[in-house]
């Protein structure tokens, strides 16, 4: 089948954009921790790029996107080592793209999802344990969940027919639930609640947020897998929801705490982009505005839960990705409309039927539960065997020096 060069150009560009998100995340997270563990934080993202790429090539793409082994649970091993992908194509007739462009595009999703988790265990994880964790998690958690919701014969996408345009389940709820499990298994940082632990370098945080915002256009609009109306809709919806959540987060803060912070603006941007991720191809621009406003406020409130419930989700993966991911998935059940995308569905407010909402809830809860439980087990096994957490003294002095023999800054020379 002849490929469409325009659609291919857009998917290639999108793959590059999404890959760029992980260095962006490294910067975002790296600026948010204290100077003494900045490099370790960034290294968790960079190592995730390294390992996940190899796993994806070796077998994870196959597990996620090869023909289903049954019940929509997992793909088979026919694409091991990316066998059979070099000349094949994927996509609708007239809009075919090289399968390798799709392999690449999807790989970047796997990378950033596992990298996101590192935010929950800032300042205190053993690097060797992290490496093992990434391997196990991509294999046992990410690949099946990606199959469920992204493969046409996965149970969420192909059977349940829940809607998830760009990864509200696979990326957002999945990372939020797994982050909670990790935070619980590793326990709290020294000084949690007592010390301020404020971002050591806010310009880096804002830069990282900007890189993520930019890359998210590839993430969401690229998920159309074509340069078409739906891609344009997904792009503008992403922009609108992201912007709206900046305002609602900052507004929430201003009311609650009296000050609009730049960390709030950056966090709001992420929350909005997360919220619109599953919905961007199925709702109108005004629907996106609504989702952004809700996601920003819900996550602004959600990040304080860790102090109340006493888990140290250090950089707020649960509060931002988990909660706003849920907001996005469930919002679809209310406001999705065939007017935005004839390949979508009508939500409760349009059709009057709760059927779509039910599907969205089932998909969300299934991914949440599976991810939390499986991650909890994986992390506990690592904790009980080689140990997941560094020694208290190392944590206090800072992991960068102890683990990587480096420090982030030597400005005085």
């Amino acid at each position, binding site marked *: 089948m002849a490929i469409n060069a325009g659609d291919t150009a857009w998917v290639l560009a999108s793959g590059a954009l999404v890959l760029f998100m992980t260095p962006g995340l490294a910067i975002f997270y790296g600026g948010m921790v204290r100077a003494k563990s900045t490099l370790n934080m960034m290294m968790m993202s960079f190592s995730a790029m390294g390992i996940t790429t190899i796993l994806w090539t070796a077998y994870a793409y196959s597990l996620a996107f090869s023909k289903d082994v049954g019940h929509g649970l997992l793909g088979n091993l026919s694409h091991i080592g990316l066998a059979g992908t070099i000349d094949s194509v994927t996509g609708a007739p007239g809009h075919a793209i090289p399968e390798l462009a799709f392999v690449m595009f999807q790989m970047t999703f796997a990378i950033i999802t596992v990298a996101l988790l590192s935010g929950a265990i800032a300042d205190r994880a053993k690097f060797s344990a992290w490496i093992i964790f990434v391997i196990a998690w991509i294999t046992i958690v990410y690949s099946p969940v990606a199959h469920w919701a992204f493969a046409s014969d996965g149970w969420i996408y192909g059977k349940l027919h829940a809607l998830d345009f760009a990864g509200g389940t696979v990326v957002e709820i999945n990372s939020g639930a797994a982050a909670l499990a990790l935070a619980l298994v590793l326990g709290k940082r020294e000084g949690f*609640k007592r010390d301020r632990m404020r971002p050591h370098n806010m310009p880096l945080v804002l830069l990282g947020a900007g890189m993520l915002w930019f890359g998210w256009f590839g993430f969401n609009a690229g998920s159309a897998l074509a340069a078409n109306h739906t891609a344009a809709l997904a792009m503008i919806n992403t922009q609108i929801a992201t912007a709206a959540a900046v305002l609602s987060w900052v507004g929430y803060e201003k009311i609650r705490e009296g000050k609009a912070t730049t960390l709030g603006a950056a966090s709001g941007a992420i929350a909005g982009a997360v919220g619109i991720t599953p919905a961007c191809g199925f709702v109108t621009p005004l629907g996106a505005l609504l989702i952004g406003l809700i996601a920003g406020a819900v996550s602004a409130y959600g*990040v*304080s839960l860790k102090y109340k419930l006493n888990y140290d989700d250090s950089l707020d993966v649960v509060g931002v990705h988990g909660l706003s991911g849920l907001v996005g998935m469930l919002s679809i059940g209310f406001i999705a409309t065939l007017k935005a995308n004839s390949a979508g569905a009508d939500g409760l407010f349009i059709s009057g039927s709760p059927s779509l909402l039910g599907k969205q809830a089932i998909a969300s809860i299934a991914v949440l539960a599976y991810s939390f439980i499986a991650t909890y087990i994986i992390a506990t096994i690592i904790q009980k065997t080689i140990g997941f957490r560094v020694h208290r003294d190392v944590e206090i002095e800072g992991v960068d020096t102890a683990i990587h023999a480096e420090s982030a800054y030597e400005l005085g020379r």
Partner: protein
Amino acid sequence: MKLITAIVKPGRVDEIKAALQANGVAGMTVSEASGFGRQKGHKEIYRGAEYTVDLIPKVRIEVLVDDADLDRVLDLMVQTANTGSIGDGKIWVTSVDAVVRVRTNERGSDAL
């Protein structure tokens, strides 16, 4: 020979520098610090959690003066650093046994 050490608000450095230069003081050394004193215990809510902010950015200013100039320079610095609000800072004076100008190896008052 005396060393005056002042811990003051960062925003006051330019004024103090100008005042010293205007009054013929030969030099000064500035470095960054932070601290608490009376100006502490101020609570801050940040991302839904309440913290006590207690290390507030300050600047350290050091000036070497002849004994004869001490009172004049000290008063000048106190006045210029003063904004009347809490956290204005502390100034203390210590005795110096010897001073050397590196370039010329001059010692004592000549080295200032």
